């Protein structure tokens, strides 16, 4: 076997780099790997901490509460993520033009994503959707009858979806940076060939952004599937469990009912769900991402 040579500056041994990244190695072991494995094992204990084997995991898979929470989380993710990607991409395209005042607009669209997960904003959001809150008042102004946001199990989830959609700025910034890297010549050449701006969007912009769209898709899916603080503060999981996400279920099992084992079994199941979702995204977008390479 050929011995590997290490390319380092003169006088630097092969372990210098390892020393430098040692904080990361230690941190990864203690704060990521250990809890990850330990969560799996904790999932096999009962409420007194005694080992019970996989019974919690079987409970999770067969219980109504997990199935319902998983459905809520899926519904939430499937509605929120595509909406957020479309809105952030279109806004980024609009903002990417060379025109006066774009910097100001960029800031305006970005601010909600910076402040959005702050609890102050979550509290404010709660009051926007009350019976006589700002949203219903606005609906009334344009002649739509007010909506019962909290009373209806179909609507309550939309309070949270709208909050997270309002924070599309973070995805938008990633798109804006990628758009800036597309050479302007492409668009000029397309224009010479008589290609309109809509066509240019579909034939140049979208294919060029393929990787970034995928990155945003994965990042947004992972964070949406973990949603906890907004339903916790705004709806408390109600009405009738219609906003009880898996994240909420984990918290409730752990800190309300004190069932560490079950809570960990749920959180591991969520990890499996998230991994499955990401793998699925890789799979279904695989062809699209590989085209024209």
């Amino acid at each position, binding site marked *: 076997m050929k011995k590997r040579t*290490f390319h*380092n*500056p003169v006088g630097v041994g*092969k*372990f210098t*780099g*390892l020393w*430098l*990244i040692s*904080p990361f*190695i230690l*941190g*990864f072991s203690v*704060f*990521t790997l250990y*809890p*990850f494995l*330990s*969560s799996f094992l*904790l999932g096999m204990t009962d409420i007194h901490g005694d080992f019970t084997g996989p019974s919690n995991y079987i409970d999770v898979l067969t219980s109504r509460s997990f199935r319902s929470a998983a459905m809520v989380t899926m519904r939430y993710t499937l509605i929120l993520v595509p909406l957020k990607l479309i809105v952030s991409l279109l806004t980024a395209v609009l*903002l990417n033009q060379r*025109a006066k005042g774009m*910097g100001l*607009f960029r*800031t*305006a*669209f*970005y601010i*909600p*994503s*910076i402040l959005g997960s*702050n*609890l*102050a*904003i979550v*509290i*404010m959001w709660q*009051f*926007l959707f*009350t019976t*006589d809150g*700002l949203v219903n008042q*606005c609906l009334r102004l344009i002649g739509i009858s007010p909506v019962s946001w909290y009373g209806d199990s179909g609507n309550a989830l939309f309070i949270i979806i709208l909050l997270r959609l*309002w924070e599309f*700025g*973070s995805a938008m*910034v990633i798109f804006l*940076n990628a758009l800036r890297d597309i050479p302007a010549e492409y668009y000029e050449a397309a224009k010479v060939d008589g290609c309109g701006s809509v066509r240019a969007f579909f034939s140049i912009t979208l294919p060029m952004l393929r990787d970034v769209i995928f*990155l945003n898709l994965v990042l947004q899916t992972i964070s949406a*599937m*973990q949603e*906890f603080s907004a339903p916790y*503060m705004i709806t408390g999981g109600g009405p009738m469990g219609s906003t009880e996400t898996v*994240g909420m279920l984990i918290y409730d099992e752990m800190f309300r009912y004190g069932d560490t084992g079950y809570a*960990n079994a749920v*959180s*591991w199941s969520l*990890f499996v769900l*998230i991994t499955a979702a*990401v793998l699925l995204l890789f799979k279904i977008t695989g062809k699209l991402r590989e085209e024209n390479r």
Partner: protein
Amino acid sequence: MKKFFMYLTLAAGALIMLYPLLWLIGGSFKSNEEIYSSVWFMPGRFDFSVYVNAWKTVTPFSMGHYFLNAFSIILPKIFFTLISSVLTAYGFARFDFPGRKFFFALLMGAMFMPAIVTVMPLYLMWGSIGALDSYVPLTVPSLFAVEGTFVFMLIQFFRGIPREFDEAARIDGCNTLQALFYVIIPCTRPVLVSISVFTFLWTMNDFLTPLIMISSVEKYPLSLLLRLSADSTGDGYELCKLLAMSVLGLLPSITVFAIAQKKFVGGITAGGLSG
């Protein structure tokens, strides 16, 4: 004409985005009746006594106490994050060592690890060494480069700095760490600023970790204080006080954002960072 419509769309969008914030600030001066009867954000009159009340909070401590709490979490965290991320990124960007590819894969993988899976074992771990209800669980992990995003961003940036720079420093007699401190770090200042700003904002926004780790009202960070205030707000309560507290709770983030605004929206976000 086309331009006009573009501006119109953007302006309408910006209005929708920012109006809730205006409504929040205006609402802090309004009576409940005013809040629920008018969509216009401007209050009829400005009465700052509500802010005096909000400053007192619903706890025995004043808002100032909670600002101090927030800062005593954030400042060590920024300091720890900068040191550990810079060292780790320097190792990855400039040196070759056994297992380099493997550890880089771990760094990337950890970025996709859902926090909700790790938070409970960490709670039990901190509990077993008696560190719960202190700022240790909130700050100490930052000493170990736990934010892969920042490390990744720094690696990208370090790679853009010509290797000749640190080679020259070595010829002049610098060792590995001196080359980092005297040559690389001075070039990296803008990235370090944005890492600090993001650490600040993310820490202000963090809710799950303090909710689980901190239990005494005295040690609450701002987010938990706001939750407490919201929970103790029953029906018929004057909403303006809660809204005023929310405005106060947003002040640190807004101030930092305003100062760093240029860097945010300018080129520095190129590392792919986002709120």
